């Protein structure tokens, strides 16, 4: 078989064409192409996602029937505790309002958010990200934080297309977020690890942190609002050079099965 067989020539010409495509794709030059393909497939992806979500829920339900009774009892107890706590918070909110009025402080604004539907997620499981059905058309910009529920951070917008956007999750190794432990105020940087783990690094040795402490965004740098919940500290270690402490953090949100997320457009 000669090297210049028909198959090899076809292979080499495709490789050559793809290398040209790759070289022009650097520095975001591929965004219009990706945006076009994602825009065209967005309705199908959305439909598939809704269908798969329903099916997965059904199987999860079947698998969890045995645990439902004990879980229900636990939830009733938890609910009673939350009702009491809620009543206390309402009281504190009222007091807070009165004090703000007394001191002449402006009322604390909540974020402006844009609800969006998750249409696709990382197909390779290498970088953790999702794709949502809101993009440039709804004023989405790179860097906007993405949250679920009432202020649980899940990631940040890293690429924006015409009507879709890519959110890099906090578990991605390329993600770096300024954070602090809520109780002690110890500051650090939260990075993602392979899989679903996250770590809080660069915590000063002088600061005391405990397992179970909530980790929130510190708001340093102005890229994120302060106080978004990231997770809870599950383990504390020393960094390799022993200069800093580092903590494993359990994400507060279930990042493996996201359906609807909120993009913080203004804070």
């Amino acid at each position, binding site marked *: *078989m000669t090297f210049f067989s*028909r*198959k090899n020539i*076809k*292979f080499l010409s*495709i*490789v050559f064409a*793809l*290398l040209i*495509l*790759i070289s022009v*794709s*650097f*520095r975001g030059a*591929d965004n219009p*192409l*990706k945006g076009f*393909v*994602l825009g065209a*497939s967005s309705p*199908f*992806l*959305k439909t*598939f*996602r809704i*269908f*798969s*979500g329903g*099916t*997965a829920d059904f*199987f999860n339900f079947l698998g969890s029937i045995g645990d439902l009774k004990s879980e229900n009892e636990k939830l009733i107890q938890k609910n009673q505790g939350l009702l009491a706590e809620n009543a206390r918070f309402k009281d504190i909110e009222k007091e807070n309002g009165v004090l703000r009025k007394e001191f002449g402080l402006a009322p604390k604004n909540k974020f402006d958010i844009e609800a969006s539907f998750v*249409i*696709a*997620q*990382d*197909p*390779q*499981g*290498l*970088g*953790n*990200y999702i*794709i949502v059905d809101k993009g440039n058309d709804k004023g989405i910009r790179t860097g906007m934080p993405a949250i679920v529920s009432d202020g649980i951070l899940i990631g940040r917008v890293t690429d924006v297309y015409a009507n879709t956007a*890519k959110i*890099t999750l906090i*578990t991605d*190794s*390329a*993600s*770096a977020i300024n954070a602090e432990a809520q109780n002690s105020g110890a500051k650090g940087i939260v*990075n993602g*690890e*392979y*899989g*679903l783990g996250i770590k809080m690094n660069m915590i000063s040795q002088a600061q005391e942190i405990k397992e179970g402490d909530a980790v929130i965004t510190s708001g340093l740098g102005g890229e994120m609002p302060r106080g978004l919940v990231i997770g809870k500290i599950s383990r504390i270690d020393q960094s390799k050079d022993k200069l800093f402490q580092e903590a494993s953090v359990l994400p507060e949100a279930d*990042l*493996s*099965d996201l359906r609807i997320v909120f993009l913080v457009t203004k804070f």
Partner: protein
Amino acid sequence: MKNFILFIFCVTAVFFQLSIEGSFFSSGRIPDLALALVITLVISIGFEKSAGWLVFTGLLIDAGSGTIFGTAALAYVFIGWAISHLAAVADIRFRKILFAASLGAITVFSEITKDLFFWASFRLKGYYLHQLFGMRMNFFSLDYFLKIIYTVLAVYFIYYVFRRSSRKLLQEPIKLARRKRF
């Protein structure tokens, strides 16, 4: 008709991988349906006839990935070309267990090759964009092991479905890739 069926196969595999699998598999364990299809196509119809479909599938995956546009297509074309040189696989198709084992081994090597392409792509992107944190790969984790196992099973499934549908829908079997004898 044949092209339309191949188009449906490619689009369905990619849509399933991008949108549906995440609901059933945890991150890091998602089987690579597109790669499974690539392996099936090359073994079933040969590299030359499937090359266009490998590029098409790769570009669709690239659109939904964080990689540089064209990386998956390049990885799939390279894998397809390499598989096409293993002509022995086509010759042992009648020996079912041996064929299944060869298919499994090809899938494992293809998956690792593809992930190395992706890893290189992320590193290159990180280097040129001066990103502080690059992507870390962990080939020796339970997640990665399970991902490979699931992908091998996906190859068996897709190969079976593809062979069956090609017989039924086309009224004639898709011609198998065979070793050229010189």
